[in-house]
């Protein structure tokens, strides 16, 4: 939405890894709950929770908590799955702890995030930095806005 040079974006905010994150709602296809039909994939990457059947299409489910922690994290079953659109990556969903809100944010409040050394700080890789493309600056907090196209690549890091 454009108004006097101000562009509004809709973001989906969620809670995971102990903090609030945002992602452009245009990238999300649907949000669902985790069903019992999740099939774990032995020998897969630590952040891959398994495969899920979504209306006849098999999706890879990635744990956001594990991805950020850099190791496998046991998930509770009360979270939500964000399924992304095809242009974001090959049939995958991201498991997060909880939904927060959908909010319209204007570009004035968004600051491009210059990752230190492409995701590394103090010579140590930082996944949250790698995934963050910009930051939403609200009155009382800074919320990382993630680039969902980096998620699939991130599981192999």
């Amino acid at each position: 939405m454009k108004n006097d040079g101000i562009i509004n974006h809709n973001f989906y905010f969620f809670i995971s890894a102990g903090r609030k994150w945002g992602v452009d709602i245009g990238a999300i296809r649907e949000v669902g709950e985790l069903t019992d039909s999740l099939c774990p994939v032995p020998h897969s990457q630590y952040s891959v929770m398994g495969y899920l059947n979504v209306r006849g299409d098999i999706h890879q489910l990635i744990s956001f908590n594990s991805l950020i922690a850099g190791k496998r994290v046991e998930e509770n079953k009360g979270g939500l799955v964000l399924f992304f659109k095809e242009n974001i990556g090959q049939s995958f969903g991201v498991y997060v702890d909880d939904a927060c809100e959908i909010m319209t944010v204007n570009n004035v409040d968004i600051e491009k995030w210059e990752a230190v050394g492409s995701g590394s700080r103090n010579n140590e890789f930082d996944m949250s930095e790698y995934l963050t493309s910009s930051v939403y600056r609200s009155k009382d907090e800074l919320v990382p806005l993630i680039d969902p196209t980096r998620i699939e690549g991130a599981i192999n890091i």
Partner: protein
Amino acid sequence: MDEEIVESFRLESEEHLEAMEAELFALEKIEDPVKEESSVIESLNSAFRAAHSLKGAAVFLGFKNITTVTHAMENILGELRDSVKRPSVDCANLLFDSLDALSKLFVELYESDNIDVGSIIKRLNRYVEESERGSKLERPESDSEFSAHESLEGMYKFCVTSGNKAVLGELELVGEVLESTEDGGCYKYIVTSALEYELFSLSLEEFECEVMPYVEKAIAEEKKSVEENFVVDAPVKSEDTKSVKKIAKPMDASVRVPVALLSELMALAGELVLVRNQHLRWASECGDSSAKEISSRLDTVTTELQTSIIRTRMQPLDKVLSRLPRIVRDISIALDKKIDLDIVGREVEVDKTILESIVDPLTHLLRNSCDHGIEMPAARVAAQKDEVGCIRVAAVQESGHISICISDDGNGIDPNKIAESALKKGMVTELELMKMSNQEKISLIMLPGFSTAESVSNISGRGVGMDVVRSSIEKLGGTFEIKSEIGVGTEFLLTLPLTLAIIQSLVIAESGYKYLIPRINLEEVISLVGKNIHAKIKAVNGQEVLNYHDSLLQLVRLNEVFASSKAFDSQKREEISKKYQQVYSNRLEVDDAVDSLVLDIAVVRVGQKRFGLIIDRALETEEIVVKPLHSAQSNIKIFLGSTIMGDGATSLILDIDGIAKHALSEVHYLENEHVADRSIVNSELSQKIISFAAGSNDKFALALSFIRRIYTIKTCDIQSIGGKEFVMIGEKSINIARLSKIMEYSVENRSQELYLIMPRFGKYNCGILASEIFGITDAVIDFEDSMLKRDGVLGTTFVGDKLTIFPDIYYVCERTLGTDIAGLSFKSKVFSTPKQVLIAEDTPFFRQLIKTYLSCESMVVDTASNGQEALDMLLKKQYDLLLSDIEMPIMDGLELIKEVRSRDGIKNIPAISLTSLNTDDDRRRCLQAGYDKYLAKLNREEFHDSIKKIFNMN
């Protein structure tokens, strides 16, 4: 140029080329062309018609090279047909080569006129010219009505009416105008052309003329039929009214459909199967009778639809098998061999993708059989076989898969030759080979880069053969195995799924989830209950095994495979084995309800690997659609793909080959043992020896050629009964010979892992116990005379810097088993006159060994290190027996015996050849050269018996 028409031409050309090839083969197979004249004519007619149709279409579409080649072929076939002659071998070769040239032109159809076909055209034209010169007198004059009729054979006649006179010019380009009439501005022509109706009509499309096949009686009917139908069959004689009726096929008889569309339909059918599975489950759970009824109907329709769609992609194996006779024919001629090919199961149908994928593997295997399997005619006759070798390709459809067996009655594969080659290439170590069975040695042929061929040929032996065959077949979800017996033949067995998209599978439960085992990999599921679990699963070399159909089946625990992404090493396998032995032992001790324990084992197979997969439970069978793993997991080798189950859940399909590679050792040496058939040839003075320790102080060694196999055993597995020790290897109990007991050497140390060295010759159920194997080395063995000699010791010598004792493995075994040692000794024999024996042997070790075996007070033994030296000694002194090696420097054993048999005074001496050359051919050469007896070096029993016979010692 209309691409659709060109594509149609290309597709039809395949059929015509195949038809010509088949007819040429049929002509070659006719035994008596005079008696079977009608068959000759029929085949020549068919081949001619195919060439003619190709030419016609090529003319129309303007492919000059194809036109020229087919025209020349047509001339030859026409000539043969006219004279009712079967093509000579040269002529058949020329026609086959022409077919090859045409095939190449069709591959690059649009560029075909730029391809050089000068050579084949030249050959064809030369043949026609020579043939014409040779048969001029026999040919009838060509101006009669009869010959005009003959010249029209295979041509079409059309009636063309048009208001446009200019059409005449067009007609002259595509055919010969036989008759032309004008009636009030309407022109009527009778034209003969090589073009089929469809193409002929198309060529005149812009001239608004009416075209009809010119068969007067049938014209009305035919006109109607042709107008209604588009598909035109193979050309027929235009005068044959009955045949004309066959020109047009009914509309629904066949239709060409793009393969991509069939694949799409197949994928949709797969999705429908999944929906059907889900619906069936839902209907059975909801209990609604209407839902069940609908579900049942959905099930039936889906199954029928799926079957029909699968059938659209199924093609008979004949598409591939029909190419094989040509390959055999060409190789037979190239190698001067005589080979019959027997093909069974041409009608078996398989998915188009699979069919296309097996062309190269099948061709390679067949070439291999022709090149390496079938012997030269003379060699076959010498081996008392029919001089014509036979290769049989048999395909059968079994439940859900097809098996193709390519077998030959040739020379078989020599496992030791394979082993030698693999050793030279560094693919295996000598120690690994020692532990391998013959079948395992033959399997080495499937290692990447393996080839025993001494030179690269066009036939086979490029070193990229069997491993490519195996990987191609396994990629298709199939299996490949080789069975062979020396002198009898070889069998290549391929097992392939019928279709790739939908497969039958076994649903299993493991760690709370469902997984699938492809049916093609599954042999059976066995359940062990209660105490049987502990009793039947044993550990051999740290690997869990199960006694299964008289052999040891290695076991893999699926939960352990899932738990470790790192491939198992021997330590891991041992760790797993111990863990579960402990678990079962604990359960047996504390749990009274042990009888309720159930363990399911899926016996699975991929190629020659068979093992038991321990799973939680086998559930049911289900038809599944294979979906690939997500690209991020494509490096996981233990899964083939994923699928959606009837209950909507996602499940993973196990890759049995991947699991075998992950969990099992590459070298499988637990199968039933096979006795090696061939000695390791070593004509050098040095000898391959294996050195070992049997205790803490002494170093021992044995000649490698005396050893059959080495087993690894555990100290705790040694059992003692009645003062004798033995160990169970598979189902057999093997006696243990301790050097410390027999020859009072230092006692074995108490290491956990020991080795049992089995003798190569004799029927000893006994092996020498070793505490450590140092390795295999080359050494020149010259026993030190000054060193201590005692019973059971062949001699002692320095190997490296350590004094090494060479025990007499037979003595040691006989002492352990308590058999009559004296029976294999000459010590007790006393002759009235001492027997003079000459040994011709270049290897000091064998020279001394044979001397030791002949050790007897009344036997005088002299030695020579080559044939010339032996001959000189024979001429100087009278001997009662000559024992000679074959491979010797200066003069070999064959030359020696020929010299001996040609010289007075020594020509009647009994002579025995003792050699490591151990093939039937070697045996024949030795006996033909003049030896009375041929013995393998060195089977003591056989040696002893032969000496006894020669000296009448019985």
